[in-house]
């Protein structure tokens, strides 16, 4: 199996993250190799009877300054790339339900143990979210019970869905495709199966999809409504009949009482 250091970038921010990770990977590897070679060299067997020359150490100030320069350089690079990866990309397409110039707002609610997605037009879905390609999506992470970890490496990386707070993540998927992830914060017995699927489709397909989704939900809701009304009507009829019977029983009671 081939080890890949980074997930394939599906969003502009992740590309920057991947670049930073490559830089850090090389720096960290270099640090580990240098330090451990020095340790090996210091630990190597050697002639124990030769008194070492107690040479002068390089000044501590110089070493500190060198380390500080290294740390500042690392912080600068990390800040530049972190800023870039956190930048909200601008949409190249527009879809229905999106305020012009603003990202498309979708609410992702973590629940034990699945995710629910609310689209702007009132449609909703569980487990799988469908988003349009080329449109910046603002996924507002919320939770109804415990803390859940939103985690789709190719698009957004990780972010917590915390009850009582909204944690937005932004991404713009440029290519249609399917991205999967799995929750990353222990949330109980269904944690291991709490999977996420982000399906990226063309904007027109997205519009058709959520319209159909809304229609399906509406028709299902209509069906429930109709059944509810029908059963309520029956209940009213039944209640009326019941009252009639009750009245009859009462009259019988009164009659029998009278006859005594």
């Amino acid at each position: 199996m081939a080890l890949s250091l980074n997930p394939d970038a599906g969003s502009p921010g992740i590309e920057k993250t991947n670049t930073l990770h490559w830089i850090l990977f090389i720096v960290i590897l270099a640090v580990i190799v240098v330090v451990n070679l020095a340790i090996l060299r210091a630990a190597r067997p050697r002639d124990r009877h030769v008194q070492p020359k107690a040479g002068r150490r390089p000044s501590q100030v110089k070493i500190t300054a060198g380390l500080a320069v290294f740390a500042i350089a690392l912080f600068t690079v990390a800040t530049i790339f972190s800023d870039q990866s956190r930048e909200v990309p601008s949409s190249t397409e527009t879809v229905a339900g999106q305020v012009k110039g603003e990202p498309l707002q979708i609410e992702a609610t973590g629940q034990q143990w699945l995710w629910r997605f609310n689209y702007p037009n009132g449609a909703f879905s569980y487990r799988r979210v469908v988003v349009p390609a080329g449109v910046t999506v603002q996924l507002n992470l919320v939770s109804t019970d415990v803390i859940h970890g939103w985690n789709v490496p190719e698009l957004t990386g990780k972010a917590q869905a915390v009850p009582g707070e909204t944690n937005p993540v932004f991404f713009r998927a440029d290519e249609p495709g399917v991205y999967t992830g799995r929750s990353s914060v222990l949330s109980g017995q269904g944690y291991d199966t709490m999977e996420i699927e982000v399906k990226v489709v063309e904007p027109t397909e997205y519009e058709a999809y959520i319209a159909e989704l809304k229609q399906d939900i509406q028709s299902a809701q209509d069906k429930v409504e109709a059944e509810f009304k029908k059963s309520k009507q029956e209940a009213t009829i039944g209640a009326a009949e019941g009252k009639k019977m009750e009245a009859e029983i009462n009259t019988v009671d009164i009659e029998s009482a009278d006859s005594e």
Partner: protein
Amino acid sequence: MSRTTSYPQTMPPTRPEVSSEGPSSRPARWIELATSADHKDIGRILMAASFGSLFLAALELLIMRLQLAVPENVFLKGVTFDRMLSLYGETGIFLVALPLVIGLLYYVVPLQIGSRGTALPRVGQIGLWLFILAGFLLYGSLLFTPPEAGINPLPPFSDATFTPNNGVDVWITSAGMAVLGLVMISIDLLTTLHNLRAPGMAWRRAPLFTWAGAIVTWLLAVIGPIFLAAITMLMIDRLYGGGYFAGDEGGSPILWQHFSNIFFTGVYMIISVTFLAAIGEIVQTFTGRQLPRKAFIWSMVAIAILGTLAWTQNMMTAPLPSGWKYFAMLISISLIVPFGLIFYNLISTLGSSDFNMRAPLRFAFGALSLASIGLAAEIAQSTIAVATQLSETYDAWAATHFAMIGFVVFGGFAAITYWYPKITGRQLNEDRARISFQIMFLGTIVAVLPLFAAGVEGQVTDSYRYFAGEGFDTYNLIAAIGTVILFVGIVLAVGNLVKSKSEEPASTPDPYRADSLEWLALSPPPAHNFDVLPDVRSTRPMRDIREAINRRDAEASETAGAPQPVA
């Protein structure tokens, strides 16, 4: 030079209340140990508890890794895995790392500063018994409901609504008692450090490990109460319907993450400072050279303060104002300077010196090597962008484990093998120590290195299984094999500590010709530590004492031929 002075068998009649029959018979050894308020007894019990718990933690880790060895394994149920995970986390932090740190410091530091005891011995004794009760409570819960809400039980998941059983209450109570006990012991040590130093033992002459003791006890006095307050709030939330960590009642679940991460990050720094200082002492003793004191001490202070301030480094995925994330990134990356300086000084001193490779030094090399891998890997965890990818995966787990196994296990064995002759009065078996070191080192590398790969591939932690086809199989299988090796190594190393105590020859008080004062006391030291308190004149009091003895012997041999003065 005869010490067999004969005392009168009966007391003079002026003190009629004094019995002339001699002292009453001593109680059994274990009763003496259990009722002792002596810092050496308490320190030994803490260290013994720590190494016993290390065995338990290694066993729990082994069980978890065996469950994860193959995908979709059915060896453990989900809830059993969660319980193992929670037990492992609490054991590792509260029953292995912290008591080892506090036990070592509490044993060694009063000796190093030339004190005849501690300032508040009963406070230390209460602390010890709180700690021991905590351990029994945690493992007693195996008979009922062990904790199951993870290594860090995040509310609302750990609230009564979502984890209604008593497991989290056990976690709260035992962690609280352990921390309270260890804080009490460290307050005793802190008071001793400030009040009971030997004449001449100014702070500028105090050994590195004593400085670590001061830094650690101060830091624990800050972060311990924060943790105790947090778990009290969690307990009020759970038992009395409080709303500290409930998002819909004016509290916030993020608060708990702040409190707990202040504590856990502080503990990370406490561990780093203590074992770096212990390794510093070992390096100074075996090379016979002094490390640059000022740089070393200021680096330890910087690690303790900066490291603890960087707690939001663990909260990169939480909804925080982004300023705090940049602050955490700045502070954690700035830790490169103090850690780098200490590593540089230790390794360059070793590299340019002559020394005999003995067990303490061997473990110290192992600790430096493993901790360097873990600390370097933490750099990636502390940058905002990469942390959103790597946190909560096995990459983070591997980084933490390299640093913590490096410092606590290898640093711990380095320290315990270094002070072993002092603590037990026996030498340590070098061959067994070497073999157990090699097995442990190999085991750690094989057990933890592949998890970096599993982490960058995206395997999340805390899940009791993963699925075939996700690409994690090979890494987890290798890690399981490595954990078996690590477990064997730990059992052998702990076994060597137990076995050497009864089998090996007795040790002299100063087997390494070291510089600090604990080597002046007998091995093991008597209850009052020192018969004579030295007058400290430099940072290397034992060298001064050895020189004084040599001088006196030389003078004695010069005057050997001269006629003795008539007594």
